């Protein structure tokens, strides 16, 4: 995309003195959350038209997947929505397991739910910090990153990696969680509700923050459906739908939680919804800790799941399976599946087509941010230019999953 080429045609001559101006925001802009370019047509300070230009981070992950074995794709999925890696891992693994018809042990399912919710906290913390920072409340950023650091430390102990965890694998989890894992998670969520109160004290009553968000970036329920907006953004517009509750996966049906709804559809509603979602996630993590079943963390499928290191070094069969999985992968029965999960940003869905070989024939990622970006013009039209920043912060997009 040559930055010199005009994306929008020149504004129509109205015959008046007022000339519309075309303004480029991004791709390098501190409030763009990645490399997003917005071409904005403005009349003074008022947004007349707005067009997102994407593709600056396009790496062709879907094409790369076609050349990889199924188990080699797990680390690629981390790099889509790099702020919620577990949600991506989970969605991919559930899709492949659906193709394989693989049953996952209960403990692995519960741990997956726990990790998915911990990831939601992680992601919402970054959203809150950066959103508040965009609007000028710098302090909150430091506070949210303090808590996020603890989540990243927990992930590091679990997977050896802070961000690109690749911990959820086809057939279960990569390895047993470390001994102090449950205590650390318990310690974290015990103190976390107070931290949410702290953010809320800094922001909810803050008149500047309020005025920047209330009544800004309104998205009606009909527009949310028409433009494909999902997740907290859709629920902020009054649509009561959450895949975790309505089309449960990975044992979510065993958890009790509320799905917050607001009807205003503005940035303020989306802010409140995410704050409540964090509190609900804490409750779900607590339920997962309390009810964590005993058992294995991997399915009993030696031809699909890598053996434990210990077994691999002591048993001939395990060594053979290990060698075969790593060098030739495993064949997956032909068919097509679509698996949806509720990621922190909305409805994520992976579509996998298998032709019966060890490499997928086609992998497609339906990422929530991609669709949400379509709604940005509707939210910003007729508002001040400064509101664009508030809207981008409030819809919580990640360019890694938009461009793929």
């Amino acid at each position, binding site marked *: 995309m*040559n930055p010199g080429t005009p994306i929008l045609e020149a504004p129509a001559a109205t015959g008046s003195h007022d000339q519309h101006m075309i303004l480029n925001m991004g791709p390098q802009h501190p409030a763009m959350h990645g490399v997003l370019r917005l071409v904005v047509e403005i009349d003074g300070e008022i947004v007349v038209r707005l067009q997102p230009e994407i593709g600056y981070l396009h790496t062709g992950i879907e094409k790369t997947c076609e050349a990889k074995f199924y188990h080699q794709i797990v680390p690629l999925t981390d790099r889509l929505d790099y702020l919620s890696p577990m949600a991506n891992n989970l969605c991919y693994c559930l899709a492949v397991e659906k193709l394989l018809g693989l049953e996952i042990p209960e403990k692995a399912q519960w741990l997956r739910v726990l990790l998915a919710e911990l990831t939601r906290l992680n992601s919402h913390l970054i959203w809150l910090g950066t959103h508040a920072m965009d609007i000028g409340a710098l302090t909150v950023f430091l506070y949210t990153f303090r808590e996020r650091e603890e989540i990243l430390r927990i992930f590091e102990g679990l997977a050896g990696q802070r961000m690109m965890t690749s911990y959820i694998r086809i057939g279960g989890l990569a390895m047993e969680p470390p001994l102090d894992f449950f205590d650390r998670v318990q310690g974290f969520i015990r103190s976390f509700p107070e931290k949410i109160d702290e953010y809320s004290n800094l922001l909810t009553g803050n008149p500047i923050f309020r005025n920047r968000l209330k009544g800004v970036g309104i998205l009606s329920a009909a527009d949310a459906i028409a433009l494909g907006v999902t997740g907290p953004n859709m629920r902020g517009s009054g649509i009561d739908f959450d895949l975790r509750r309505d089309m449960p996966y990975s044992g979510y049906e065993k958890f009790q939680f509320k799905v917050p709804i607001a009807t205003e559809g503005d940035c303020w509603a989306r802010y409140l919804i995410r704050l409540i979602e964090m509190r609900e996630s804490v409750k779900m993590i607590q339920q997962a800790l309390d009810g964590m079943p005993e058992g294995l963390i991997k399915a009993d499928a030696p031809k699909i799941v890598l053996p434990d290191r210990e077994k691999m070094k002591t048993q001939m069969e395990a060594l053979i399976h290990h060698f075969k999985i790593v060098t030739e992968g495993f064949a997956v029965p032909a068919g097509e599946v679509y698996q*949806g999960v509720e990621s922190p940003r909305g409805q994520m869905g992976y579509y996998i087509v298998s032709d019966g070989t060890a490499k997928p024939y086609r992998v497609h990622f*339906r990422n929530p941010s991609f669709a949400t970006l379509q709604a940005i013009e509707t939210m910003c039209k007729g508002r001040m230019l400064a509101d664009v920043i508030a809207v981008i912060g409030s819809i919580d997009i990640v360019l890694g999953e938009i461009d793929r």
Partner: protein
Amino acid sequence: MAETKTLIGKAAVLEGFPAHPAVKAVLAWDSEALEDAKFDRGELTLTIAAGKIRSAAATVQAAGYNFFEDVTAVDWLPSSPRFQLSYHIVSHLYKERIRLRVLLDGDAPSVESITSVWPSANFYEREVFDLFGIRFEGHPDLRRIMMPDEWQGHPLRKDYPVEGYR
């Protein structure tokens, strides 16, 4: 159990799901347009005649499948028909997802856009156009979305090398 059975073919699905709202609506609209059907791994797939996808989308939308989630393509080179489009549509009412499937022949196929039914298909159809070279008639702004405007070729086609042309 209904979730685990596999039904292949239009007749089997019609027999297995006589009261399914999407199947009923499509049959009531145009039984000829439903070319094939499949129920596999808990997912219902309805194959729609290539020229009728826009009306089919409007039909399932009216039947309660209100949320367009995704559209993408699969390149079945060297088979014929070469391309498959898979539309995923969710019903907030029935809490269920269906897949509409369209088969397209030829190397430069074109199909009706469903942006008039669901404006959210806009970016998705642009993506399919960009990466597969399938044209969507009636799309308001059909141009490349991921690749640079001057790019040659469509990277997700099977005859496009993974490393690209050098």
